[in-house]
């Protein structure tokens, strides 16, 4: 039985309050989206360290840069779509170029914007953020991992972007690790196919293992919660140990995990590769399940692509 999806705003508020209690340098910076991010409990506990700049994403990032320049550890949050696009130059120049110790959190990320639709759905935040020199990019796969990612970012020295969907699984099934910045995590050890997944798509990738098994394909899932710096060793090892790879994400494959893995494997270990995600398209005004189905971010699509890549045959067949 699957764990239900939980709202990350609750987790974000909780973990910020815990961090704020332990460390007087922790700041929260908001741009009139405290209700989306869930940082209000921090405001109630530490009002002198909670800054709200109103609807001003560029200033949000600049203020956070200045707080970091003076020794604070700011968590600046706005919707992922706005962080990556409206404040793109401020993230690049005021934060990354300066190497200020700012933590950027993109909330309501990816398709979890649901009915806010195409104007709000972030399909390029991973691509934008991973193209910033010096930026660490974290895309957690469940709510516990998100909590651990926020904690890890708070003690990491340097700029970090954390992708924060509105909803994530409470805990991925069969998890045996504690999140750290850096490693990929492997589920299963089938030798036909590696499904490389990030964010909420990891849960879907794990669902696909059963469908693939029924199709006679022995697969594994490589979960990539740290997009940058990528654990290239694990990616290349899995590519070598299997006959094909499929990436899956709720983001554009251009610039996203699909692009990243294509870049990595083309250079080091070319294997048949399919990339599942948003294909040169804006998001829709629709609920999450509808959008996942629409963009083919589903276990059955993974299986179909696997059969195509492997010419219909797993080695177990």
């Amino acid at each position, binding site marked *: 039985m699957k764990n239900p999806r939980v709202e990350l705003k609750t987790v974000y508020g909780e973990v910020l309050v815990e961090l704020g209690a332990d460390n007087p340098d922790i700041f929260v910076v908001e741009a009139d989206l405290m209700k989306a991010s869930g940082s209000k409990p921090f405001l109630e506990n530490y009002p002198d360290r909670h800054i709200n700049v109103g609807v001003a994403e*560029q200033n949000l990032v600049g203020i956070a840069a200045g707080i970091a320049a*003076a020794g604070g550890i700011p968590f600046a949050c706005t919707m992922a779509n706005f962080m990556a696009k409206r404040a793109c130059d401020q993230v690049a120049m005021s934060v990354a170029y300066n190497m200020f110790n700012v933590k950027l959190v993109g909330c309501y990320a990816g398709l979890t914007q649901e009915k806010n639709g195409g104007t709000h759905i972030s399909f390029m935040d991973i691509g934008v953020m991973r193209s910033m020199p010096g930026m660490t990019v974290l895309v957690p796969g469940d709510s516990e991992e998100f909590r651990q990612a926020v904690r890890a970012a708070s003690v990491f020295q340097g700029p970090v972007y954390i992708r924060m969907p509105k909803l994530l699984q409470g805990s991925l099934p069969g998890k045996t690790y504690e999140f750290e910045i850096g490693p990929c995590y492997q589920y299963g050890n089938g030798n036909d196919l590696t499904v490389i997944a990030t964010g909420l798509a990891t849960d879907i990738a794990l669902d696909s293992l059963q469908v693939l098994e029924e199709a006679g394909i022995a697969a594994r899932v490589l979960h990539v919660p740290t997009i940058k710096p990528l654990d290239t060793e694990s990616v290349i090892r899995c590519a070598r140990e299997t006959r094909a790879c499929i990436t899956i994400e709720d983001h554009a494959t251009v610039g996203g995990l699909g692009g990243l893995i294509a870049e990595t494997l083309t250079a080091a270990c070319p294997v048949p590769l399919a990339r599942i995600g948003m294909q040169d398209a804006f998001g829709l005004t629709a609920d999450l399940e509808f959008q996942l189905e629409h963009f083919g971010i589903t276990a059955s699509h993974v299986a179909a692509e696997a059969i195509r890549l492997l010419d219909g045959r797993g080695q177990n067949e």
Partner: protein
Amino acid sequence: MQESVIQAAKDIRIKTFKAIHNAGGGHFGGSLSVSEILAVLYFSVMRIDPSNPKDPDRDRFIISKGHGGPALYTALALRGYFPYEDVLAGLDKPLSNFPKHVDRLKQEGIEASTGPLGQGLSIGCGMAIRFLQQKKQNRVYVLSGDGECNSGQVWEAAMTAAKYQLNNLILIIDQNNMQIDGPCDDIMPIQPLDAKFRAFGWMVRTVDGHNAEEIESVIREIQELQVDDARPAAIVAKTIKGHGISFMENRPEWHSGKITNDEYEQGIRELEGTQ
């Protein structure tokens, strides 16, 4: 006002002019309009220690108009952060520690890397917020251009500074009335800057930006007022782009450019007052 500050302003201007020419050209106009402002900050009002550039109690200065970098390098050099000869040899050279737009990772004394306009005031506000929260005495100074105030982020930051009562922040606007494509009045009228900042909740003063004594006395007056007045302060400094060089003054084409050796010699003679 100590004579040494006025002399420092003159030295900054001459050596900035020399360094830009030596680099093969650059942003003469906006670097020559800020000499007195930098001299007052670095030789009078700022609490800094060049021998301890990371002193946590130091005041912070952000040159938001990052193309004024040559003038800031020169001021820092004359103040003792590094030898002026390094600036002269390094400005704009490949892999140099003196890129024309300042880079905090390359040089002590640079508090924030800037270049794309409009971002410095937000960073300054963030610093000021942090110092107030810590109840520390550090002051934050930001230097922006008037053309730079076209940028919406400046006004986002202006609202934030007023909301958070940043009375440890002073913004100085180098109002030389010129931007890259022409006079501000033609490209994007920005006046009245003083009334705009006042309407945003700031304390505002206007000074002759080439009168070091006046700049200093206004900064000291603001600092006294800010003890009880919880407003950020803006100083509109009326300056002349390309100040001191007759063929550059008030001509927007000298935002950035090259000069001949003859023009350089003429400029030096004018700046030294020997012509």
